């Protein structure tokens, strides 16, 4: 291998990060692409899922083994590293329940935080949620029981009982992809249904939708529940992937890269969100590796990546404003019926 470059390791980390960001991009797409709600605080719900998972997983482990250490302490990390590989069932059970809890927790917070703002106007939603995200981050930076600025480390991996780290990460990458696929399918179903039709109607003209008997605030709150819940799931997966969380993982720039993915791929369609996530996480991984291989570059590759992302968005908006894959009509049996009808008439 040139420079000792590890292709398999690269692929596994790219696939894992792609899966997590694809979930985030889809969750943003069903809010902004389907329903027209500009969520500038996606990272908040991602952070909630991640922190809930990290703290509860560590807490449960310490509790079950009667260890009185604080969650963030070095003693806890050391003790956990010995305890974790012992009981696969506990690890997997915790993993599944954390994913479910993260969905519910982030979803409910999303529902509550946006409930009052929905009645004011679309711009308020974006701004409120944006500041909410920063508020969460600053709050976590000062929350001593959850490690303040250092965050929590040594989160027990659900597959910690697999000895070979490459195999473990590989299997976990596949698990992440399965979650991504399920969330993709659910989002497609939502979009290509009468419910999806209502969502687009609300995006196109909220007042007309209201006039046609659609309960606009309830529909919007439901979509925010689901979108935030998906972001919470992504947060849970991220925690297990990275093994640690700290407040500075959840800066607003995360939200903006998710936006970049959705805009790049094309608002209103989930395949576009997948493509956007694939391209931008690939760039992220490449810059990460260049960073390791050439530590003494005059400019950090991270900045080059951001410039490149910006350039990409500008070029997209200039030449392909509807994204790589533009939005498609809603697929319901109406269209097959119309096509058949058209043939009948000649």
């Amino acid at each position: 291998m040139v420079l000792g470059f590890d292709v398999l390791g690269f692929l596994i980390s790219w696939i894992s990060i792609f899966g997590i960001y694809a979930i985030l991009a889809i969750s943003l797409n069903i809010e902004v692409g389907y329903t027209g709600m500009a969520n500038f605080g996606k990272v908040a719900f991602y952070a909630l899922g991640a922190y809930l998972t990290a703290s509860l997983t560590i807490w449960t482990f310490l509790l079950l083994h009667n260890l009185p250490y604080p969650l963030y302490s070095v003693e806890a990390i050391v003790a956990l590293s010995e305890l974790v590989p012992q009981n696969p069932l506990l690890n997997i059970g915790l993993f599944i329940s954390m994913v479910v809890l993260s969905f519910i927790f982030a979803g409910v917070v999303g529902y509550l935080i946006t409930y009052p703002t929905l009645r004011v106007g679309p711009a308020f939603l974006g701004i409120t949620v944006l500041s909410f995200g920063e508020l969460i981050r600053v709050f976590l930076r000062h929350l001593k029981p959850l490690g303040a600025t250092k965050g929590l480390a040594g989160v027990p991996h659900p597959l910690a009982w697999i000895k070979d780290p490459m195999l473990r990460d590989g299997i976990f990458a596949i698990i992440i992809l399965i979650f991504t696929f399920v969330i993709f399918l659910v989002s497609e179903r939502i979009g290509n249904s009468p419910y999806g039709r209502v969502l687009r109607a609300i995006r196109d003209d909220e007042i007309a939708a209201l006039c046609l008997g659609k309960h606009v605030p309830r529909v919007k709150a439901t979509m925010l529940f689901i979108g935030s819940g998906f972001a919470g799931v992504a947060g849970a997966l991220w925690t297990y992937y990275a093994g640690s969380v700290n407040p500075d993982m959840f800066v607003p720039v995360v939200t903006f890269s998710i936006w970049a993915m959705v805009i790049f791929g094309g608002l209103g369609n989930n395949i576009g969100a997948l493509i956007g996530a694939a391209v931008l996480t690939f760039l992220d991984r490449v810059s990460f590796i260049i960073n390791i291989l050439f530590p003494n570059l005059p400019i950090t590759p991270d900045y080059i990546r951001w410039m490149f992302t910006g350039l990409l968005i500008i070029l997209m908006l200039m030449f392909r404003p509807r994204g790589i894959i533009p939005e498609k009509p809603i697929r319901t049996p109406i269209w097959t019926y119309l096509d058949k009808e058209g043939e009948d008439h000649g």
Partner: protein
Amino acid sequence: MGKYFLEVIDVAKYFGGVKALDGVSLGIEKGSVVGLIGPNGSGKTTLFNVITGFYEPTRGEVWFENERIDGLNPNEIYKRGIVRTFQIPRTFSSLSVLENVIIAFPNQIGESIFNAIMGPRKWGRDEVELAKKGLQILKVFRIAPYAKLKPTQLSAAHIKLLETARGLMGNAKLILLDEPAAGVSYDVAHEMFKFILNLRKELGLTFFIIEHRLEILMEFVDYVYVLHNGKLLAEGKPDEVINNPKVIEAYIGE
């Protein structure tokens, strides 16, 4: 109460110091076609907004089919059978013409999030039924050939027709039309009003119509209310109203 299908009792709507409506009372009988006229800024659209639940009246009551409806949300009022169109048509630009009509059907099975996730096995058959019904309505309005197009690809007159067609999909009983003939050629407007009379006859619908083009309106309505500065200035049969000196004065000025 009881006599009228829709009854507005002493309704007022103030915006700060501006009295957009100031004690308006009127009634509409079932199956009638009633006009609402008045100079610009006389409160016509505000009255529509109060009836359809966009504004809560500052004072007064609105009754529909012997139930009080003022203060209800627009979506609840829609479900009781009152549909409106807008001065500037509001269609859903990313949906096809047919979908624009279908969406007006209330309480669709697939409009629950759970059924949507369960997939088309749950609501697919209903969709075909809705498509049939929607196409029939589009045929009545003669815009069926454009079913697959986006509303932005239609002419202004067709968009107006589409908005009215949408109302019929929702089992409307009372249709409020806000300037249906604005921006439409005389012939098309004429045809549209003939159409409205037909619908009334065939489906027993009731219409309440704001219109500035009196020459067309007066030909077709049974009864006319005239608003001026938020108050009811006159009412009566079209020929009575049109010859009423107060109305002429309000329109032309002193």
